[in-house]
């Protein structure tokens, strides 16, 4: 199974394959062997590559497909497959068509780092949004060219507001 997991404004392609009672998980081209044991309804104990243990608590957040994952005492918001978490996998769609970079939370645009027409690389920061006193770098999900810029510095944006479209 192939998933797109968005964390901290960065999208990662994650492939999960069952190997016996373990999982082979490939993130950004690197594969880890993960032993998984369920502790309770929300908590998994992982052992990565045979020796590295981690307790992770995975709880649904307010929006479908959004999760809050607590690992090492740090709550990390994650989105799996955008809004399509429970839909059919559509692997062919990944990497084609326009990419819409949207604000993950309400906030204020403090910097716009690209102009229409600029070439961008995957993971390049495109817009910085300040929310809850923190600056959040929102990044391009893939290589391409900036087709549209919908915000300018100083603007307030709602959660889900379209910021930049990458062609």
């Amino acid at each position, binding site marked *: 199974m192939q998933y797109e997991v968005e964390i901290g404004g*960065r999208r990662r392609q*994650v*492939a*999960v394959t*069952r190997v016996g009672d373990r999982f082979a998980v490939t993130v950004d081209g690197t594969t880890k062997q993960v032993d998984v044991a369920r502790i309770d309804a929300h908590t998994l104990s992982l052992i990565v590559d045979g020796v590295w243990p981690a307790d992770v608590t995975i709880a649904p957040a307010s929006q479908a497909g959004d*999760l809050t994952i607590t690992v090492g*005492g740090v709550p990390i918001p994650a989105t799996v497959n955008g809004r399509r*978490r429970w839909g059919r996998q559509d692997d062919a769609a990944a990497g084609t068509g326009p990419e819409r970079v949207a604000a993950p939370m309400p906030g204020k645009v403090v910097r716009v780092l690209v102009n229409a027409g600029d070439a961008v690389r995957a993971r390049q920061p495109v817009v910085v949004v300040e929310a*809850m006193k*923190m600056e959040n770098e929102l990044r391009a999900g893939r290589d391409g060219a900036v087709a549209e810029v919908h915000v300018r510095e100083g603007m307030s944006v709602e959660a889900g507001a379209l910021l930049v479209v990458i062609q």
Partner: protein
Amino acid sequence: MKKILIANRGEIAVRVIRACRELGISPVAIYSECDRTALHVRLADEVYAVGPSAPRESYLRIDRVIDAVRRSRADAVHPGYGFLAENAEFAAAVRDAGAAFIGPSPGAIAAMGSKTAARAAAARAGVPVVPGTADPLPADMADAEIAAISARVGYPLLVKAVAGGGGKGMRTVTDPADLAGAIRSARSEAGTAFGDAAVYIERRLTRPRHIEVQLLGDEHGTVLPFVERECSIQRRHQKVVEETPSVAVSPELRRAITSAAAEVARAVGYTNAGTIEFLLDESGAFYFLEMNTRLQVEHPITEMVTGLDLVRWQIRIARGERLDVDPERLLAPSGHAIECRIYAEDPDNNFLPSPGRIQHLRVPAGPGIRDDSGATAGLEVPIFYDPMISKLVAWAEDRPLAIARMRRALREYIVAGIKTTVPFFEWLLAQPAFADGAFHTTYLDELLRSRNGRPFVEPTPQLEEMAAVAAAIETALSASAVGGGATPLPPQNGRNGSSGGWRAQARVEGVRGL
């Protein structure tokens, strides 16, 4: 005494229930609507609903609590702290209902509850008080006259509510031009918070420490002080870390400050548990600040270094027993203890309350660790009350070991689903000034300002990658449950192919992403 009603909720209600059980006494709980599933309700022998969730409609309703006392036929009431614990009217109502109030007399509560009356009592006992006005400022006093009094007290000064506590109704004034405005706003805040707008003026000491002395007094004239507690680590006048003994208190100073505390208590005929708070200035001089006529949140650290159970003694004293312990033992601490108040607050969002459901809880344990808590996995932390969910206490032979133990325990502590102050404490206890014990009552506020909003919780690339792995695995497990194909997790789940109802339920839960 066979049955005690606990007029409180959360972790302190659980703490009192435990003391009752150990004495063979039956505990009775009260609860508001949103506390139906709280731990104190589930641990008690009898429970009485006292109304809607808002405290004014339940835990603060003297009539409803007294009704529960009558219906349960409890022979005593423990008030905990907060809510009605320092309400003389409530203490009197408990006695009128034929039950014992586990605390001081209504007269002692009233006498020490007024800050100006308490200062006068301390002065009569020969204990120095912070320079300031002896009486509340009359409401009709002219601004010019207040300014003249303030100039005599000296700047910087504090405008404080007579009925105050927890920093409410309190203003610091450095510039005489700000005085009139500070008095107006302190009066207004005090009127709202305490129903009493009276304020007085006190000199503000520079960089003082907050040192307090726990006392127990029996009903036969014995009053005994305990080794001091150091409570200088405060955020906006609220204690967040307490420890005992204090690095700033020598054996000579301990004799002097604990004797002074006992003198004040004896002067007002004080009984049961109480605490006298002092400010200690940089020269080593101490000044009476106020008395709390109840058990304190930080009582466990005193229990850890003296071996006495303070709640048990509160109950024994209320039964009329004599305080027959060796006074020297109470002043000779064994080792060192530290408490961190774990709050359901988001340290990265200006410590705003973070209510919600606790999805997973891993509580630290092991050598020297005590977690006094009312939290359980699945519990909803309500928005209506103080957001403290636990008091984490570490004891060890000496201070450096106690700090190391606390840091180890904080690392073990996982509260998923809500934000807590655990990451803030991990940072604070790693500060060199904390390790040196070099702090005062405004140290933490200054330190937090100098951080300039830098987050306490910063996901590293490694943690983000682990989160991505976990998110994908969880989604894959849920997807296979939806598809009904492979069993989700063979070794742990084990129950494949049982009843169709169970499988259907598993699918539903898979869809919910549980």
